[in-house]
């Protein structure tokens, strides 16, 4: 390599400094919230006068928080299943299909990634009003599916493009029917892509707030929506503990991803 880190001399400390600053910039807000969630002050004073687990106790004692968390999980899980399933079918068509307008179709599938979410939210809200889907789990799942699918399709088409079709052909000649060959050989071989698709889909839904605010009803809220609405009513540190739990769950998920990736590599 032309720019070798060890050969940069004192310049290397500039790089180290920039990296440290960037890391701090990204991490500090999260650490700040985590610290507040353990602080005793009712008014979210920083630095906290003393430490307590009170806000976590309140969080777990309040059925509305628990229900919101459960709803979030349920919706995210459903979105994951549908997103991977539909994404897989779409990816086969996009990668293996030989039809006119394939590229255009792929671009179309990816548009939710660049479309402003709020535009999508308003459109879906108006549309679901007619169907009576606002405030239902179905409505939530469909709305989140729209934003999760592009990630799914991207991850799975990438994996499928990197998979040599001859391997599937070999399985067919070995006596597996075309469908059996896909289940026994192709899907395990693109497992890393399916896994990425699942994680991205789950996380997309798990911390999505704009669409969720439009879809929510007083009786059906996800965790981010509940944080948002509570924030507007009163500024209780329970919000901080809810946010910390949300982040913690995400971190756990990412660690799982890292572990499984390692497994796929070996």
């Amino acid at each position: 390599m032309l720019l070798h880190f060890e050969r940069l001399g004192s310049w290397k400390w500039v790089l180290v400094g920039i990296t440290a600053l960037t890391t701090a910039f990204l991490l500090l807000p999260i650490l700040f919230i985590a610290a507040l969630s353990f602080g005793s002050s009712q008014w979210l004073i920083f630095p906290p006068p003393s430490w307590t687990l009170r806000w976590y106790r309140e969080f777990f004692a309040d059925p509305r928080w628990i229900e919101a968390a459960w709803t979030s999980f349920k919706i995210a899980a459903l979105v994951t299943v549908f997103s991977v399933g539909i994404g897989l079918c779409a990816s086969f068509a996009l990668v293996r299909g030989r039809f006119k307008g394939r590229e255009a179709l792929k671009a179309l599938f990816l548009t939710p990634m660049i479309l402003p979410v709020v535009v999508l939210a308003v459109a879906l809200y108006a549309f679901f009003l007619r169907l009576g889907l606002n405030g239902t789990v179905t409505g939530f799942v469909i709305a989140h599916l729209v934003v999760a699918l592009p990630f799914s399709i991207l991850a799975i088409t990438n994996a499928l493009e990197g998979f040599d079709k001859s391997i599937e052909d070999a399985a067919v000649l070995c006596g597996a029917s075309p469908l059996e060959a896909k289940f026994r050989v192709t899907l395990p071989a693109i497992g890393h892509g399916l896994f990425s698709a699942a994680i991205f889909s789950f996380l997309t839904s798990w911390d999505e707030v704009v669409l969720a605010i439009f879809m929510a009803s007083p009786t059906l809220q996800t965790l981010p929506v509940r944080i948002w609405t509570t924030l507007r009513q009163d500024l209780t540190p329970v919000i901080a503990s809810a946010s910390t739990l949300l982040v913690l769950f995400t971190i756990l998920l990412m660690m799982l991803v890292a572990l499984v990736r390692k497994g796929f590599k070996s």
Partner: protein
Amino acid sequence: MTAPFLQIRGIRKDYGKVTAVQDVSLEIRRGEFLTFLGPSGSGKSTTLYILAGFQDPTAGDILLEGRSLLSTPSHLRQIGMVFQRYTLFPHLTVAENIGFPLKVRRKSRAEIDAKVKQMLELVRLEGFEDRRPSEMSGGQQQRVALARALSYDPPVLLMDEPLSALDKKLREEIQHEIRRIHQETEVTILYVTHDQEEALRMSDRIAVFSKGVIDQVGTGSELYAEPATRFVAEFIGDSDFLSCAVVASNGQSADIRLGDDWLVEGVPLHARGGGRNEGALLLRPERVQLHRNQPAATGALPVRVDDLTFLGSNVHVATTTGWGEPVAIRLPFGHDAIDGLSRGDTVWLGFDPRTAHVFC
């Protein structure tokens, strides 16, 4: 009379306006090793894929022991195949790869284990059971692929340039292995290559493909000694062609004139289409005689010596005719005719008309 084991009848395949193969017909004996030899794009893989059932022919039929295969889907054809690219299942171990065809056939655990063991012995990879494909060399992977393709005792094994990704030494080693395995298992093999040496070394018979048609089918020595077309003559072995005039012909053989005044009578003729009187005379380097002085009795062609190369047991003499066409001559080391020969000398070429061929 019993029907041939495997019959390919008038296969044609069109991709839109492109005709990949046409009029391909072959009869293959049980246990035969037949090679499709031809340059890139000549339709070898297409023919193989039609046999495997990955492509449907536009016309023609394939019969295995007298029954048409065309309506049988690939996975029920019981045909084994080794591909040019590495196609081991990446998430399975070597043993699981080899056992895969038996597993989809719902064989018992014990039966699978026994067969896997036998196959690993056959391809000499004992002890590799638990390796993953990613932990093996290309040659080892292709041997596992061969074991996998043979594990369910298919009557026919297709191989599409299985060694083309390997280096020369390894390739020769595995060619030997395949030969041995063919003899041990007596499986019928259809093998694709564009390497004439590989084809000659391994096959019982060779089908030479050119532009989507089979020019000739025969043993290596038949193709070399009696090439049906100029293409086959060029593709198999070393060859030079001299332009000549066809003076007279009876369809089987021709009288030709070389240069200004040398008339050669009775050269075997391979005419294709129109009765043109310009032909190409095929000369094999080891069949050409070299005379230091113009022979009195028989005719001969004066040529100039351009170069002399000593290649161990052989000496290679590069010459040019008066009108500028090159002719190579190969003589055993120490042959009288090259004693004291040097560049720029004029010598006379002769040949036995019966072993030459003229194409027009």
